């Protein structure tokens, strides 16, 4: 989860300590320092780099890194190593070590994925000045970070995503035209890939995907369908469920429930495979849903969804 970055505006020539300006201290160095999770090394990494002149990101020179086993914690020697490699002057060492310790504390205490100070200014008076920074919080940890969770900026989320969150579901929006209701992230990505595979030439792709879960009730499945359809870009709706633990007949009941409530105005392509798929088909056929098509395979479902979008585009079907 991102929080907006803060940035103290600094004049271009501030870094040179231009005497014309009223700033009283010259800046010796501009640094970028961060502590972040390194998923490959499965540890945290402390990282620092000099920034060139008054330029910003993109002009970093060598970066200095130190892995931290968070089970054992951060040891002062690790900060000393970085300070020594960076040739941080003796006068500034103490402040630097103190700052990095606090940064690590912040990383741990706020369940951050990344905490960064950029730029960190080292002044001629032995002071360190954090002039900007950012903090990325692990969404899985928000349950134990109530203060941070309360500061989430909901206005940055698209409407269907917010609606999904409120309903305890996950929704990701994209720029395409096909709404997708899929169980499982990997299958959802594959479904969207196939839509792109068949639709790319015509500029057709997925508009959103709402993930459903094996424990979802027909009511929750109906909510998921409503949320996906609430996206006004959607010109066709694709439901792709591989029933393992998820029962296809539950999903079918949810679709029927949702269609009764929202009466979708876009074509519905349904592909249910796996546990209780035959029963699900019976439920859906008995409900006589308008403009619903059934597909047997994932590829066929994606192809039909693309065709449905083309059809509605051709007739300039108003919604």
């Amino acid at each position, binding site marked *: 989860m991102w929080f907006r970055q803060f940035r103290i505006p600094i004049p271009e020539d501030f870094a040179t300590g231009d005497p014309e300006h009223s700033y009283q201290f010259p800046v010796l160095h501009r640094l970028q320092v961060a502590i972040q999770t390194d*998923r490959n090394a499965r540890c945290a990494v402390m990282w620092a780099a000099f920034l060139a002149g008054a330029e910003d990101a993109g002009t970093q020179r060598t970066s200095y890194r130190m892995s931290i*086993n968070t089970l054992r914690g951060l040891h002062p020697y690790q900060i000393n190593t970085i300070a020594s490699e960076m040739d941080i002057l003796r006068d500034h060492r103490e402040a630097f070590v103190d700052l990095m310790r606090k940064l690590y504390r912040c990383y741990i205490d706020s369940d951050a994925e990344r905490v960064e100070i950029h730029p960190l200014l080292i002044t001629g008076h032995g002071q360190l000045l954090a002039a900007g920074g950012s903090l990325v919080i692990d969404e899985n940890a928000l349950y134990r970070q109530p203060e941070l969770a309360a500061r989430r900026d909901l206005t940055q989320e698209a409407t269907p995503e917010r609606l999904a969150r409120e309903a305890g579901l996950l929704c990701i929006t994209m720029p395409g035209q096909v709404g997708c209701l899929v169980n499982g992230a990997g*299958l*959802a*990505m*594959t479904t969207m890939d196939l839509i792109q595979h068949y639709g790319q030439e015509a500029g057709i792709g997925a508009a959103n*995907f709402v993930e459903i879960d094996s424990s979802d009730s027909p009511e929750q499945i109906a909510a998921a369908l409503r949320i996906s359809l609430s996206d006004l870009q959607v010109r066709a709706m694709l439901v792709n469920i591989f029933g393992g633990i998820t029962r296809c007949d539950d999903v079918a009941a949810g679709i029927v429930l949702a269609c009764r409530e929202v009466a979708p105005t876009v074509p519905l392509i349904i592909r249910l495979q796996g546990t209780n798929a035959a029963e699900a088909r019976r439920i859906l056929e008995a409900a006589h849903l308008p403009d619903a098509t059934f597909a047997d395979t994932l590829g066929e479902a994606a192809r039909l969804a693309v065709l449905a979008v083309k059809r509605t585009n051709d007739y300039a079907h108003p919604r």
Partner: protein
Amino acid sequence: MPILVRDGTRVLIQGITGRQGSFHTRLMLDYGTDVAGGVSPGKGGDWIEGLPIFDTVFQAVNATGANTSLILVPAAHAPDAIIEAVDAGIELIVCITEGIPVQDMLRVYQYVRASGSRLIGPNCPGILIPGHIKLGIIPAMIARRGHIGVVSRSGTLMYEVCFALSARHLGQSTIVGIGGDPVKGTGFIEILEMFENDLETEKVVLLGEIGGTEELEAAEYIQHGMTRPVIAFIAGESAPSGRRIGHAGAIVEQEQHTARYKRAALETAGAAVARTPAEIIDLIDS
């Protein structure tokens, strides 16, 4: 011999009294898995599905001789459950739980690594050895006994692919879901290594996705350490970058994390790379 489990694998369910716990315990018993009992703090002495419940993993291990544990407890308690299993000397720990904070997993990973235990997951569907043992939530109906090893970061995509394989009489030796989290106990390389040394596995299907660089390291291993043919598929080509697509680990932050980049690396390494799930079957046949 299959991979990861052995004769004498005896299973404990941590979180056996939960809704998911009791449901999946039943399915595992039906499959013939040797489930010895369960753990649920405060409910020791009770019985469920004909199995004894213990307060702690230590007590359960002492009483039953269990050597494997399946964790189905909520995310807030799962890190402690894993560490308890490690301390009790459990050899193989399979953690199904989704939503564990990454920093907890950093500590747990280091803890497990320093022990003799192996962790599969978290945020994974577990292991299925068709006709032999079910250790997790992989539905039995997708599988068929055979000689293809399957390893995947995603659950339902793996079900989809195995179901299609089984329908074409392409059975599986072992099916392993390693999980969709950024930090997990066991990665692609370790499972590929096991398949390489497994006499029952002839070909391997690897199902990767966007995010991280695991598939690139797997490609390196395939190139230099594997003789068995590998057929790979990477999900998430159409996914927007900078966004987490359902799995905590599925996020593109650099070019190396993209499906395109991973596919190219696997192709260079000599793996057969499928563009669609249906193509996986054609590539196995050829």
